[in-house]
């Protein structure tokens, strides 16, 4: 008889709370992992896109003949060739697949081409002659607001609207347009099935919504399109909207051949949406003890030419406009403007990032006005479980360890106060522009809060299927692995819940399983993890019931410490369970923005230490410490990866990453001019995980992807303010904002 001790062997690896090696790690390290860019098919054609050179123009005529005359060209298509609805969009289908009478932003697709190789396709696209009547672009979002060119307006009114504080602080803040800049550009392959349908393999965060949009925009039936999860080089929100997906399917169906497209980096900068630039006007009221009495804010985010997710980003910005603080008198007005600027949509943090910079700067200024320590002010007003969210009035029912975050952050050790004279550690780096004596050090704190999962009454769910065979457990899902480690954590959940040591995750297409929802909103560990846990738990119960057992492991079913049925016998049968997991239902806002708007919340805090050369305006971020509310860390190594990566993007937003848009045209659509942090820009990072279980995620887990970016940018800005005494009321902070050039 197998003993209990023996049967525990092999079960200790890869469970909940462990950090097993990721299953796609070795292929990625050897260059063998297949990305959308690497796909090929027999007789494959290459696609290319002709884009508008103007931010606003009327299309007078299009002459395709020069393109069709290029040898090796198979198709040159315009809006006239698009069957079906011909438009797409995540919130409203307002964006044409190909521009018809007008182009509304610089880089809008006008013509797509398929040819025998990429170079030919691009040359043919460039040969198309489009005659434009150039129109005046609307690029000032405040002018758009005045003209009521908007995607959504938000109105939040909570509590007594006539309160006035003893101390009042006003501020105006701006956040620039950040790009997700995933290293893999948009890429994909569409393969016609020979029966009028198509299989799509393309960069995505949400294959079911891609599927829906391809079907509707091209007038196909649901079963004619299958969208397949595909290897992608990062996402960060850039892959929530479709871009080349519909074009690929259109070209493949038109030519009856597989068609591949890969965007160049410069095309990628126009081919996906960006983080909304924001303008924010604030007024905070407090009493002399530092109790926050009233917050008034106006939040403007510019959505650019098409809706994308502007409505939801604006709503998030407004709902979190006060930050993680109690306040019973709140007024927020929000507007998401429609202009001829590049379309903006999802990026990590989704609206909460922009307002965090504003509300945290306001809290620092309020503390200064009160002559109070800024952390004491924050601690005094910190939200906790049982409090109302200040904007929506929703009572927080899950753990919200804001005070623990503050206390942990303060207790973390500070770096050595000596400013290093190593060129790698000085502002300006090996340019050797700065001496340690010219450097000022600053320290800044910021706190952030964000919702987890989709909100405002959206039916947010994820489906997963768990099978048990002789090879172990397999989790089938359409959820997208963007690099965060979903393939690791879903297997950990299956192992832990089912009781077997071997588990793998298998991505399946839209025809084989229902939606997993988007890999965004920090939601997949909670949602697809929840579905995996439920399916595994049900499957285990069914197997135990079938064999009259009380435990299951690799050996088989056990009863009272005795193996009753070996695994080989169990896996002769077919064992699978499919589960659909939903988070607690939310409601749409009422006319004052009130309601149970969100399913759950997560908080984090950051402390940034910076060295600044105030004369040159150069900044080096020395260190960023953080404490983050994670619920339960299912895979601590992955959690740390999200935290360090998110902080780096926050540092980028704080001091270097900005798309420069002039008259609607992006002036720096490349990695030479859009600056991304390198390893020499990376601060030391220490992270404390605050584990307070009680959320509805599997094992109490909360999503962890977004909190690291929300308050890190604000903390860096605060540290620069501390070092220089400059106002620092916009991010990214530019040298001229410090040196006042």
């Amino acid at each position: 008889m197998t003993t209990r001790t023996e049967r525990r062997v092999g079960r200790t690896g890869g469970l909940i709370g462990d950090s097993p090696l990721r299953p796609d790690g070795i292929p990625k390290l050897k260059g063998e992992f297949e990305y959308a860019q690497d796909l090929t098919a027999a007789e494959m054609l290459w696609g290319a896109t002709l884009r508008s050179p103007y931010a606003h123009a009327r299309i007078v005529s299009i002459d395709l003949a020069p393109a069709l005359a290029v040898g090796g060209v198979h198709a040159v298509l315009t809006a006239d060739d698009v069957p079906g609805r011909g438009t797409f969009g995540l919130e409203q289908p307002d964006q044409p697949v190909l521009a018809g009478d007008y182009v509304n932003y610089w880089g809008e697709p006008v013509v797509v081409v398929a040819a025998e190789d990429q170079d030919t396709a691009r040359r043919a696209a460039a040969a198309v002659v489009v005659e434009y009547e150039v129109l005046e672009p609307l690029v000032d979002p405040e002018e758009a607001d005045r003209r009521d060119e908007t995607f959504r307006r938000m109105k939040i009114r909570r509590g007594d609207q006539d309160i006035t504080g003893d101390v009042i602080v006003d501020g105006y803040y701006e956040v620039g347009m950040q790009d997700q800049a995933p290293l893999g550009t948009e890429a994909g392959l569409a393969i016609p099935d020979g029966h009028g349908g198509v299989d799509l393999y393309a960069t995505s965060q949400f294959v079911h919504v891609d599927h829906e949009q391809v079907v509707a925009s091209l007038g196909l039936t649901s079963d004619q399109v299958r969208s397949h999860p595909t290897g992608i080089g990062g996402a960060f929100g850039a892959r929530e909207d479709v871009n080349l997906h519909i074009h690929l399917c259109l070209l493949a169906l038109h030519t009856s051949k597989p068609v591949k497209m890969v965007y160049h980096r410069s095309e990628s900068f126009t081919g996906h949406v960006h983080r909304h630039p924001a303008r924010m006007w604030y007024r905070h009221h407090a009493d002399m003890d530092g109790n926050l009495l009233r917050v008034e804010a106006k939040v403007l985010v510019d959505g650019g030419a098409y809706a994308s997710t502007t409505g939801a980003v604006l709503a998030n910005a407004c709902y979190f406009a006060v930050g993680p603080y109690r306040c019973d008198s709140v007024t927020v007005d929000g507007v998401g403007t429609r202009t001829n600027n590049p379309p903006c949509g999802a990026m990590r943090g989704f609206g909460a990032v922009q307002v965090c910079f504003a509300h945290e700067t306001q809290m620092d200024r309020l503390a200064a006005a009160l002559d109070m320590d800024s952390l004491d002010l924050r601690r005094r007003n910190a939200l906790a479980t049982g409090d109302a969210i200040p904007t929506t009035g929703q009572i927080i029912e899950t753990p919200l360890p804001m005070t623990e975050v503050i206390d942990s952050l303060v207790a973390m050790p500070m770096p050595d106060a000596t400013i290093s004279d190593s060129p790698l550690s000085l502002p300006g780096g090996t340019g050797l522009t700065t001496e340690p004596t010219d450097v000022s050090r600053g320290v800044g704190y910021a706190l952030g809060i964000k919702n987890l999962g989709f909100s405002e009454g959206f039916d947010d769910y994820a489906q997963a299927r768990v099978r048990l065979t002789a090879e172990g457990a397999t989790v089938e899902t359409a959820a997208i692995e963007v690099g965060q480690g979903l393939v690791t954590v879903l297997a950990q959940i299956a192992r832990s819940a089912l009781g077997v040591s071997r588990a793998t995750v298998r991505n399946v297409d839209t025809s084989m399983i229902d939606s997993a929802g988007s890999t965004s909103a920090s939601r997949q560990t909670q949602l697809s993890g929840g579905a995996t846990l439920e399916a595994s738990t049900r499957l285990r119960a069914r197997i135990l019931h079938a064999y009259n057992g009380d435990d299951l492991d690799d050996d088989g079913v056990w009863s009272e410490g005795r193996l009753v049925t070996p695994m080989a016998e169990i896996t002769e049968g077919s064992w699978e369970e499919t589960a659909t997991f939903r988070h607690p239902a939310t409601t749409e806002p009422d006319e004052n923005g009130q309601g149970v708007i969100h399913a759950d919340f997560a908080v984090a805090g950051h402390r940034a230490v910076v060295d600044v050369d105030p004369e040159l305006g150069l900044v080096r971020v020395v260190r960023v410490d953080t404490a983050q509310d994670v619920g339960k860390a299912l895979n601590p190594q992955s959690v740390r990866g999200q935290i360090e990566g998110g902080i780096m993007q926050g540092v980028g937003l704080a001091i270097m990453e900005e798309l420069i848009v002039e008259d609607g045209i992006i002036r720096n659509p490349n990695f030479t001019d859009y600056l991304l942090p390198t390893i020499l820009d990376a601060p030391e990072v220490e992270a404390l995980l605050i584990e307070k279980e009680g959320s509805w995620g599997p094992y109490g887990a909360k999503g962890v992807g977004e909190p690291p970016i929300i308050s890190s940018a604000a903390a860096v800005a605060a540290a620069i303010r501390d070092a220089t005494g400059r106002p620092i009321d916009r991010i990214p902070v530019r040298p001229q904002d410090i040196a006042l050039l």
Partner: protein
Amino acid sequence: MIVSFIVNGEGVTARVTTPVSLLDVLRDQLELPGSKSACEQGECGSCSVLLDGALVCACLVMAVDAEGSTVRTVEGIASEGTLHPVQVAMHEAGAVQCGFCTPGIVVAAADLFDRDPTPTTDQIKEAVAGNICRCTGYGAIVRALESVAGERR
């Protein structure tokens, strides 16, 4: 024209009719897609290869200039089924997320350790300063490469 060179120990030829980069030839003609194309202008290091022993961005090398040279790509870093210590360390440290920068970092770091088995942390950072990673924030990459240096000390 026909370009002949050695890749990962094997002689190869490519037919080049347009001014294409070594990266395009590796990926599109020689079935070596491990080197990634991410910026096409030498800023991100995702296409890092060793050209006659020198670390270069394959996107900035014209294919015709590879004539007669010896090229080592990420596919040639592990030898006979044995992972390079850099690959093992990055795997264990959680230094791989989306993985798109990973091949370039593996090549650059393997090159560093071939030249200096015990680099300092600053030397490690300088060696991969030309490689942009958008996922990890670099912390796990530094820890991984420090552990390789530590084991060799």
